[in-house]
């Protein structure tokens, strides 16, 4: 039963609303290390949102926090995550369990570590189905093979009998994707799904995401540190820096004419296009000076100020508010308003 964009119910409200999310990690000694410091954004149904962030931006914390799957020392301090109207952060454990895997699916980093090493692939997919449906064993077996068929054009049956360590990184990633779509979720969150893969495998996985997104009408959040992956793939891009949103807007605008100094600097630091100019070869790249800030020791003011080419006096005084630039493009920077 394929859900296409055409027959989705016309929801007035967004699919996902993250409001002022604060998450920190607390060490044994009680020391707090903030990871998300007031992140807010919205997502419409059927949309693909690319979350662009480097290490320390809090992107992986976001993926875990959405379904309240932070490690033992992680604490959600405040904020709300509204999914189809329900605040996930306040939901009862029973309700949360029904949503996990069935309405929202998260694919975490490192496919080789995300599968149980001693259970066969087919079983692991069946377990996802069994957690949310109560069909007969043969029906679930059928569905398992069907799901594997979606991600593996050939040998679905023999893959089902394998153990994770017998598969390559790309194959493991496909299995994770099959698990994610097993119960027909509306939202799939993928955290760096191509990070450890070869370029051609990377390309295959992205193509697979495209295909599935078309076929099942999925809303997708793709988290990555590589802007090039989002070009031509995401509808909108959210740029994260130091635990907050720096910029959000349509992909062509954020990647094509970025407004936030960080986004601009990030995109400029990448080597030029492959067919690019020969005289740029071996020239110095426009790298962003300095390092990502240590979130435990932040002074007042904009978090990017120390490394910003456009910094002003005001930037050290307080943090910039969100400025709406129109056409659902927003940025947190004093250059565009107070």
């Amino acid at each position, binding site marked *: 039963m394929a859900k296409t964009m055409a027959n989705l119910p016309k929801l007035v409200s967004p699919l996902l609303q993250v409001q002022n999310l604060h998450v920190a990690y607390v060490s044994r000694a009680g020391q707090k290390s903030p990871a998300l410091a007031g992140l807010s954004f919205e997502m419409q149904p059927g949309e693909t949102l690319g979350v662009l962030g*480097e*290490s*320390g931006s809090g992107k992986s914390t976001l993926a875990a926090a959405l379904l309240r799957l932070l490690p033992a020392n992680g604490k959600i301090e405040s904020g709300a995550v509204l999914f189809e109207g329900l605040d996930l952060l306040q939901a009862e454990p029973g309700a949360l369990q029904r949503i996990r895997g069935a309405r929202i699916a998260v694919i975490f980093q490192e496919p080789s570590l995300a599968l149980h090493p001693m259970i066969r692939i087919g079983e692991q997919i069946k377990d996802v189905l069994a957690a949310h449906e109560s069909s007969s064993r043969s029906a679930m077996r059928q569905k398992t093979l069907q799901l594997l068929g979606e991600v593996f054009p050939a040998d679905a049956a023999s893959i089902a009998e394998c153990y994770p360590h017998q598969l390559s990184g790309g194959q493991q990633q496909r299995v994770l994707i099959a698990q994610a779509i097993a119960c027909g979720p509306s939202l799939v969150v993928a955290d760096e799904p191509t990070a450890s893969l*070869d*370029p*051609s*495998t*990377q*390309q295959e996985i*992205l*193509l697979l995401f*495209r295909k599935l997104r078309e076929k099942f009408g999925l809303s997708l959040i793709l988290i990555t*540190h*590589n*802007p*090039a*992956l989002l*070009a*031509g*793939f995401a509808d909108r891009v959210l740029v994260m820096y130091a635990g907050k949103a720096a910029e959000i807007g349509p992909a*062509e605008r954020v*990647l094509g004419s970025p407004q936030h100094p960080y986004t601009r*600097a*990030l*995109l400029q*630091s*990448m*080597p*030029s*296009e*492959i*067919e*690019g100019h*020969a005289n*740029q*070869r*071996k*020239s*110095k*790249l*426009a*790298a*962003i000076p300095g*390092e*990502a800030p240590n979130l435990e020791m932040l002074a007042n003011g904009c978090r990017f100020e120390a490394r910003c080419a456009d910094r002003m006096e005001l930037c050290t005084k307080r943090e910039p508010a969100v400025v709406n630039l129109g056409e659902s493009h927003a940025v947190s920077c004093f250059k565009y308003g107070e």
Partner: protein
Amino acid sequence: MGLSHDKAEPLLIVDNLEKVYASRGVLGTRKEVIALQGVSFAIRPESTLALVGESGSGKSTLAFCLACLERPTSGRIIFQGGEITALDEEQQRAVRRQIQLVFQDPARSLNPRFSSLDLVSEPLLVQGRVNKREREDRARTLLAQVGLPQEKALQRAEEFSGGQRQRLAIARALALEPKLLILDEALSALDCSVQAQIANLLLELQSSLGLTYLFITHDFAMAGHLADEIAVMERGKVVELGAADRVLRQPEHEVTRRLIAATPRLGATVHAPQVG
């Protein structure tokens, strides 16, 4: 930044290198894996050769053979005019000073409990520079060269960020004043903006210290930016070799074309799948 040594002898010549791994099966059957087959290329001094290939193509095996960590099954490696493949252990030690490796994952190749000063002076200790004062001075110079602030000298490696650790790995590799630096996917695990910083560092060091690089990667964009020449490997063989410009603009081999097409790029149009 041109190549002023067109007529100079290549720093490194690899001639028909082969590496075969043999293993015993359960019933005594022999299984052979051919990791490298007929690999030949040369690197000019103070230039960069990028070696591009996917996993299983043999790039890392090649790196290990060149760094004298593995013995090739057949073929020759000629470094600075002298053949090093047939040398014994003792003689190879001397050569190893000249060829250093930097790995992809600094978290695994650096002892996290050592301070950065210790890590960088360790090679000096191993190669017999006994004077402690001398070692420390040299280590501090190296840290400065790679852009690590002196305050961090006593900090332990585990407290460094990914980019800083990679700088540390480079400093450590430079301790013995090598001529050739083999960078095995050294940038692949880093964030994009950090890759730019380290790439700049590498270029700077190349011109100030006269280093030669073998840059192993699967990222064509960065290869295109850093390299003078590009070699493409697949399944143990070099399938294409030539000037960087030429390989990128007019790839001849199908594998090269495929890899170039698979490289994600910012300027992509909205709906076109990137199958070349």
